[in-house]
């Protein structure tokens, strides 16, 4: 069965038909087509057979029990995550409903973190992911980093000779969210050598990709200007986060692409 022949509904459409998800007119069209098309009716039969075998092999009561245990497991993991001293923790503060949640906390970080990859310049920024089921990890800048449910992000920087720091994120719709600070202008870097961690952990909720940007600069930058530059970059990338260029601003920039759970 090809999903890609224009005369057939896609295989996915047929599977949605089987699940009873299509609107009435679309369902009628697909059903009418499948009635006279052996290829498409085979897809429907196959979906029916898969469901039949599933129900025969796993009675509802066992399924229900398994889901209940999975919920309990998830709750235990959540309690461990929020209650353990070795975990990231803190009350959630909504930044933007259904888009982003910032966790005000100072998580315990593993020692000797690997440096992040910088886009240019001498300063370095890092993005660490943690708080989920797995161990903490450093996000790479050259691949899309998938986030598991509950995982949070922490940003760090080594300022080198730079004096100010600012962080923001852009979602797949081009919505820009200032992360640090939320308003005003970029903040002076912390004194001292080594990595400095921004005070908040961030949990991205919703779905799709999110691009996170850290800008280290010599002069302060207003959040407003940085937000405008991010929007402009998003447009220059043809509204595709993966194609988005560096922000048109002076300083060192580090970009990461995250895939929200």
């Amino acid at each position: 069965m090809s999903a890609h022949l224009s005369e057939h509904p896609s295989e996915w459409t047929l599977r949605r038909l089987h699940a009873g998800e299509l609107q009435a007119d679309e369902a009628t069209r697909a059903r009418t087509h499948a009635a006279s098309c052996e290829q498409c009716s085979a897809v429907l039969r196959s979906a029916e057979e898969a469901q039949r075998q599933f129900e025969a092999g796993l009675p509802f009561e066992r399924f229900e029990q398994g889901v209940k245990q999975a919920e309990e497991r998830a709750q235990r993991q959540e309690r461990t995550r929020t209650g353990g001293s070795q975990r990231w923790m803190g009350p959630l503060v909504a930044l933007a409903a259904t888009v982003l949640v910032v966790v005000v906390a100072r998580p315990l970080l593993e020692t000797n973190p690997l440096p992040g990859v910088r886009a240019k310049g001498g300063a370095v920024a890092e993005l660490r992911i943690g708080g989920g089921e797995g161990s903490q990890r450093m996000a790479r800048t050259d691949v899309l980093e998938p986030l598991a449910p509950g995982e949070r992000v922490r940003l760090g920087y080594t300022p080198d000779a730079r004096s100010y720091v600012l962080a923001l994120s852009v979602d797949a719709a081009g919505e820009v969210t200032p992360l640090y600070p939320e308003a005003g202008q970029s903040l002076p870097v912390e004194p001292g050598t080594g990595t400095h961690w921004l005070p908040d952990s961030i949990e991205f909720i919703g779905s799709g990709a999110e691009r996170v940007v850290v800008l280290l600069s010599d002069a302060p930058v207003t959040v407003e200007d940085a937000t405008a530059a991010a929007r402009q970059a998003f447009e220059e990338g043809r509204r595709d986060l993966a194609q988005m260029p560096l922000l048109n601003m002076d300083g060192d920039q580090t970009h990461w692409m995250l895939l929200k759970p």
Partner: protein
Amino acid sequence: MGTSQPVLRVIQGGPPEDRRAFLRELYTKYGGSVLGRCRYLLKDAAKAEDAMHDVFARALTHSDGFRAEASPLTWLMKIATHHCLNQIRSERAGWRSWFEREEAARPEGHGGQQSMETRDLVRRLLSKVDVETQQAVIHYHVDGMTLEEVAAALGRSVPTVRKRLETFAELGGEELRVR
């Protein structure tokens, strides 16, 4: 006297029977598809069943949002795919043990022998690409989504999805060509 309209309101939670009915609906509509995805990726019957339970537990936890989805099947399959790929990645030996694992499950299948072979080929090549490409490839070649459907499911543009699929196709030849 005018006619009165019923007042509708959203009630959080609900009695256990509602929840049970909701779970039964998930079971009868989507159970086979989600378990098939977990078996296809994890290649281990017990792990697949656990993963499937995790996916439906998430659906229950996010039931308000889930019910509002235009395509709950897309939501579930996306979550199941993501969950299983993460699980493979987080296992100590990762993809290596995945290759060595006994094939406890037959390939997830719809649409005849040729499609089954394509899905088997896809599975063998998955470890060679990044996670987002893996997801796109699975939705396209295994779920039978169109480019537009994959793009919508992953929140990416059609050209980006096409590019990723074409990169993947270079690993497997004509059989994986993007149409």
